[in-house]
């Protein structure tokens, strides 16, 4: 009996013992009203900062489950070097490994700490990741957020989890440093500053490329950059050179002085240093001693058509090369004693040695292109003669006359192009001990650095100085940062933000330059229209002034009656159609006279277009009975 009552008593009271748990912290989560707080680097659903994403597609390539597809987003207007594609992630496949985050070059892709996905529509499991910056409606502040709302349409704000860290990224943000001659040594002579990659270094640098091809879109001539870099990585420089020659026949030149439109957009450059595309091109061309063997290119069956190319600059050379491969007979006229055009007189030898130019030019000549050097069109041979004797003409002329500042006594100043030209192919220039270079562009840097070297050669051991004066302040100086940096290293003095007012002359000798402080360089419309503080003046002493403020075109070789028919764009450039054809019959043009971009690779791009145009023009003509 006793036993029985005890049992009864226990079973009667026991349920009430449970009441105490009401006041205790529960061991379970009251889902869905409570949620577990994931760890700080939790890998949940993706976030993608659309402003930063470049659409490179690396995330889609790396995904081991093929969960990411790139979809075009029409509302995005891509900037140059970007695509309007964004990654779409299929959560049926995603394993949340985070490789896509680690490979994303701009670091736009992240994984959030959201792990709940509730939705009636199964299609939403494949989602186009956005972030709270580009898609404000769908991101709720943390306090408004509840699991009941948790779906793709409602995500928590500021809930980043796994984000990219450059130390652990799957790409290498640092470039293999390029060996260079130190500034103290290089300023004393004209030896080439950049030594060039060794085989090991080139391979290591080439291995950084992600093959996303953003750079190829940005290159005016659309070189197959990722292919030729890959060939270098695989240790096949000849294969690499073949890829380059498909679009660019002057790699030794371009590999040294190209303006690197590609490196500006290279994915890796967004957070690290871009792939050294230019140096790799240079490496490919340097590795191959004889282009002919490596390339095995031969002109097509001759067509019997004759094309004249005026100007043996990058554009002229390229047009000659492309047309020669198509089987036309090409003759190139140039007033200089060798090929290269502006490349021959412009870049000083420490940047571009003459041997490199000749290497490219000789190869093009070996294909059967005829070169007529030392031949100035309009003087040694008339434009009318060429016009009569050839089936098509390509104008690949460069800017050959220097602009002047037109300040008082500016006739005492040395024009930059004359200076460069005299040094390269003339008798050389006797420089002063204190040289003032007016200008802030790349030509000004070339002139200043060349002048410094000449000073060291002509006055060994003496105190010499080269100064530059530019209207533009540091932030808007048109020269590339690299050039400015190197010039500074060599000891060139900069005076940015000053405008020239007057060249002081005493007894016919230059004494210095009077400068005024610049108020602004551009007007409200962004046009070049400098204004000055007339009361703030500065006097720079110097015994030589060189003007490097820009160059202009010289059309005087074209006869007046033809020149009148040549149409120009509002910005004083020759107007051409999609085939590079001008308004004059059978005359095509490209390069500096067509483009606002005055650089070699743009000229090559024009040349490629014009070569196609000339080719189809000549083929079309041969069909007509003439």
């Amino acid at each position: 009996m006793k036993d029985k009552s005890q049992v009864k008593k226990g079973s009667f009271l026991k349920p009430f013992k449970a009441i105490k748990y009401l006041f205790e912290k529960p061991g379970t989560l009251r889902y869905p009203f409570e949620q577990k707080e994931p760890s700080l680097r939790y890998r949940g659903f993706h976030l993608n900062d659309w402003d930063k994403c470049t659409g490179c597609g690396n995330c889609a390539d790396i995904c081991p489950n093929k969960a990411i597809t790139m979809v075009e987003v029409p509302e995005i207007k891509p900037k140059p070097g970007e695509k309007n594609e964004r990654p779409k992630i299929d959560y049926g496949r995603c394993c949340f490994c985070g490789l896509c985050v680690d490979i994303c070059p701009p670091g736009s892709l992240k994984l959030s700490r959201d792990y709940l996905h509730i939705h009636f529509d199964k299609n939403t499991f494949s989602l186009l990741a956005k972030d709270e910056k580009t898609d404000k409606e769908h991101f709720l502040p943390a306090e408004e957020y509840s699991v009941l709302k948790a779906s793709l349409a409602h995500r928590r704000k500021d809930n980043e989890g796994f984000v990219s860290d450059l130390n652990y990224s799957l790409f290498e943000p640092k470039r293999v440093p390029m060996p260079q001659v130190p500034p103290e040594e290089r300023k004393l002579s004209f030896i080439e500053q950049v030594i060039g990659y060794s085989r090991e270094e080139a391979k290591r640098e080439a291995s950084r490329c992600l093959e996303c091809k953003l750079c190829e879109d940005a290159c005016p001539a659309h070189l197959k950059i990722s292919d030729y870099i890959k060939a270098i990585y695989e240790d096949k420089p000849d294969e690499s050179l073949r890829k380059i020659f498909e679009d660019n026949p002057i790699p030794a030149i371009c590999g040294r002085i190209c303006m690197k439109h590609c490196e500006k957009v290279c994915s890796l450059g967004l957070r690290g240093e871009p792939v050294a595309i230019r140096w790799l091109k240079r490496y490919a061309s340097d590795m191959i001693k004889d282009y002919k063997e490596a390339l095995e290119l031969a002109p097509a069956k001759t067509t019997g058509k004759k094309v004249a190319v005026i100007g043996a600059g990058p554009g002229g050379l390229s047009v000659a090369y492309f047309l020669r491969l198509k089987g036309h007979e090409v003759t190139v006229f140039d007033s200089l004693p060798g090929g290269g055009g502006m490349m021959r007189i412009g870049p000083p030898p420490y940047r571009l040695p003459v041997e490199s130019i000749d290497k490219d030019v000789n190869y093009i000549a070996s294909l059967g292109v005829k070169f007529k050097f030392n031949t100035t069109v309009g003087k040694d041979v008339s434009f009318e003669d060429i016009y009569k004797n050839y089936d098509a003409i390509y104008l690949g002329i460069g800017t050959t006359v220097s602009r002047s500042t037109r300040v008082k006594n500016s006739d005492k100043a040395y024009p930059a192009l004359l200076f460069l030209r005299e040094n390269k192919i003339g008798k050389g220039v006797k420089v002063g001990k204190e040289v003032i270079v007016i200008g802030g562009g790349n030509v000004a840097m070339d002139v200043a650095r060349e002048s410094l070297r000449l000073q060291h050669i002509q006055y060994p051991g003496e105190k010499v100085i080269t100064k530059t004066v530019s209207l533009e302040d540091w932030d808007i100086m048109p020269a590339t940062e690299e050039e400015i940096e190197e010039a500074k290293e060599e000891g060139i003095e900069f005076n940015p933000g000053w405008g020239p007012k007057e060249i002081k002359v005493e007894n016919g000798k230059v004494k210095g330059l009077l400068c005024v402080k610049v108020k602004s360089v551009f007007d409200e419309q962004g046009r070049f229209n400098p204004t000055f503080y007339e009361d703030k003046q500065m006097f720079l002493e110097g015994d030589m002034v060189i003007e490097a403020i820009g160059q202009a075109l010289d059309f005087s070789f074209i006869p007046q009656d033809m020149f009148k028919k040549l149409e120009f764009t509002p910005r004083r450039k020759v107007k051409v159609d999609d085939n590079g054809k001008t308004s004059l019959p059978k005359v095509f043009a490209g390069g500096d006279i067509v483009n606002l971009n005055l650089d070699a690779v743009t000229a090559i791009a024009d040349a490629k277009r014009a070569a196609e145009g000339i080719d189809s023009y000549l083929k079309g003509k041969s069909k007509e009975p003439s």
Partner: protein
Amino acid sequence: MGATGQVLRATGVNYDIRKAEPYAAYDKIEFDVPTREDGDAYSRIWVIRDEMIQSVHIIMQCFEKMPEGEVYNKIPNPFKWKIPEGKTYVRVESSRGELGLYLVSNGEDKPYRVHFRTPSYPHGLTILEKLLKNASIADVGNIMISLYVTAPEIDR
């Protein structure tokens, strides 16, 4: 029957991949391979018990012999790091026995096929089937536990 690891060593076979084909730094480290003769659950448990001592021993040696330097090294660019064409089988001694990886590549950056050979598969299916024959119900639990079978590892 595919028995490896403790299951094999508990039957008196002195076989350990770390000794047979030393990988990683195992050739620089001293350790014994414990064995038992009887091949029953009791010996398997003892082998595991002895291995624990060896493991501690190995870890202590590693601490002593570990070289100085960077802990994390950047891996090469995954897009350039192509797997050479062909197939391969590599194996390590895992805590349960031989863990092998069979990989077929067609020369791209991602493998064409991957298969893991896991010890739980032979232990959990073929061997267990043999051992359970005529065993008393009370022993089933011990036999299964001592084989160290993990269900998710059975098929990969």
